Structure formats: C-alpha cells, structure tokens
C-alpha cells in the first residue's frame, strides 16, 4: 500500500465533508504529482482566512487510531520588520493551530478508540512554513494488511475533521502581527 494513494482518497472524502459544512476547499494535490513542502505552504499562504490540514498515514502506532499534531513551539522571529520570515510563518498562528488541533482531536477520539484525547506536538516541517492555523492528521497504519480496514476509517475521519473545523470557525480571528 502506498501512503500517497491512501491519502489522496482520504483527501477527497475530507473535501466532501468540509464542503458539506459550507467550506471552500483547495487541495495542494489532486493526482500523483508531488509538490514540494514549500510549494504546498505557498498555496495555503496565498489564501485568506484559511485553515491548513495535512493528512498522513503512518507505518507505526496502534492500528485504527488517529492523532492530530500541531507545531511544537517556535522561537520568536529575530526582529519585527513587518514581514514574516518564511521559516517563521507558523509562529503567529501557533495558538490558533493548537485550538484547531484540540477541536479536531476531540472529534477523532470520539470515533476511534485508543486515539489520544489531546493534541500532539511535533516539529512537522510542513506546518512550520504555513501562515494559517495548521494541523497534521495521521492515521495508523499503512501496515494494516487489508486496505479495506483503512477505507472503512476514512468517512469517519473526514467527518471528524470537518466537525472540528466547524467548531473552530468562530474562534478564528487572524492575528494582526507577530508578537516579539
């Protein structure tokens, strides 16, 4: 099983669930192309009022569980010049990203027994350069023998993500500047 194929199928279901909630969805890939991490961030950073969700299937962890990650803390940018350095893009959004991750993980934990109740923190490269509330959702695991088991998880994962984003929506106030 290839992670990229499974994720593409999951993305289509997440898209459908989000659109059902009234959100407009932009996918960073819709086929087997492989944009760079910076290009994906670039696509997200060009949107206004967006949230960013990156989807993964791990090869470890208890099968049938799902975890939501937010970026672990970043140091403050060196100086406030009015422009945010690329590698600090996530810094002003950390609080919002943690809130979004909390809401999504709460929904996932309700659906998938054994999943953690709390958001996980990690230095996810993709999140670092994203200037929006940004989370990574990772399903365990790509090592499941029968892909049907993963396929059965997908609608509930998609629904949980969409519900989490909808709950988060009222809390989303764009930070006006980077705090020193």
């Amino acid at each position: 099983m290839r992670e990229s194929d499974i994720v593409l199928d999951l993305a289509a279901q997440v898209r459908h669930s989000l659109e059902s909630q009234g959100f407009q969805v932009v996918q960073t890939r819709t086929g087997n192309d492989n944009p760079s991490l910076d290009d994906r961030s670039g696509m997200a950073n060009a949107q206004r009022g967006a949230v960013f969700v990156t989807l993964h299937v791990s090869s470890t962890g208890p099968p049938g569980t799902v975890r939501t990650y937010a970026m672990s803390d970043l140091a403050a940018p060196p100086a406030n010049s009015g422009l945010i350095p690329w590698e600090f893009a996530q810094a002003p959004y950390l609080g919002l990203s943690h809130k979004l991750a909390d809401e999504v993980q709460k929904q996932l934990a309700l659906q998938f027994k054994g999943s953690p109740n709390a958001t996980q923190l990690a230095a996810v490269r993709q999140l670092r350069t994203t200037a929006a509330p940004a989370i990574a959702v990772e399903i365990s695991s790509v090592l499941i023998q029968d892909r049907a088991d993963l396929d059965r998880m997908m609608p509930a994962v998609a629904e949980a993500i969409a519900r989490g984003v909808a709950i988060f929506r009222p809390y989303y106030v764009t930070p006006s500047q980077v705090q020193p």
Partner: protein
Amino acid sequence: MSSQGRVWLITGLAGVVLLAAIYFPFLRKRVRREARGGQQTEEQARRELIQQASAAAAEPKAKAKLFWAADPDDTSLIPVTVELPLSNDPVLRAKQVLNTLLAGPVDAELRTLPSDAELLAFYLLPDGTAIADFSENLATSTPSGIQSEQLAVDSIVRTLAANVPQVQRVRILIHGQEVETLAGHVDLMEPFVVNTPAVSSTSAPATNGTPEQPGAAAPATPAAQQPQTQAKPSAEPPATPQKP
C-alpha cells in the same frame, strides 16, 4: 597482409610487450603500497576502537539516563537508567550515550532508532550547539511518519539533555549533510532546543540558534481566549511570509 605490414605489426606488438615489461614493476610496487595503506587504515581504525574501549573501561561507571519507547505502540518515552563507563569530556560522553541509545534496549520493540543506524561524528560548539551526524540509515530505516520520526528525534535530544549538561541545542545531520526532514515529516533544518521544559515532552525546533523562549512566539492574546471578538475578524492579516 603484405610482408611490410607484417613487419610493422610485429614491431608494434613487440613495442607493447616492452612497455608492459617496463611498467609492470611500477604497477606491482603501487599495488603493494595501496594494500599496505589499506591495512594501515584498518589498523588505525582498530587501534582507535581499542583506545576508545580501553579509555571507556578506565572511566568510572556512572548512571546514564537513556530514553526509549515506553511501549511498542506508545508515543511516549521513558528514561531507563543504565550504568556505563562515562567520560567527563562532553563530546566523548555524548558519543557514549548516543552509541548506547543506538545499541537499543533489551526489548528490541522499544527501540526508537533503527538498529542499522550509526553515529558517524559528534561535535560540540562553544555556544552549546551539538552536531550529531548519523549514517544515512537513520533516515532510510526510521519508519516514515510524524509519530515515529518525532520519537526518534526526542530520544536523541532527551538523552543528550539528561547526560551532557553542556548541550543546549542539537542539530542532526545525515551523512554530513543538512536534510529537510528525517523521513519526510519531522523538520531537521533547525536545531532542537534542550534543557527546557519543552524537552520533557517534545523537542522544540529553534531558529537562528537562539535559545528557546517558551511561549514567546505565540500571539499575546490568542483568539481562542477572546471568543467575544469572533464576529469581527481583523482587517489586517499578517504580512505574507517571504519565501526564500
């Protein structure tokens, strides 16, 4: 072939044989020299290993804290106390604990790093930045995924933090090179800060080599704490990040 052609052919062949005869002793000498050089390199490596081992054996045993997985399916690490001959020199000490971490726990399922990964070099800069250079297997054999990659990084950073107080930050290289991610997910372009509360759960990447300032990067008034302002999104979005 004419008789003149035959003469030229025979003369040419004779010339080749003559040249080969002249060159052969030089070639033999060179091959012997190379072989001797190879033996010396192996001999040097063996001597270094014996020296390290005897130096380690001469060190008094001390308790080292190594961080391995708490459970085969768990995302958390637990400290395991191991008695090791530990050097007082921070670089040697760091190598000793990292090599023991790589060797793995008794229960192989609790490993955090692949068994075929090696520590190639370790440096400690005066500002407390440690540079740990691992073989390519660290990147290729670590299971791809946020959970497994973060666990690998955390085990390295927390083991160094617990045993080598001079280490303030850890930069991980793969075969001498900076790489974007460990196995596709976790960021290795920035050093990881140690000796901070964040390290107790997840190692936080730093930027510009500055010590971490917990919470400094988060918005001072996170929107999540001010739901009463929800209906009025800010008209001023943050400046667009500048792509390098």
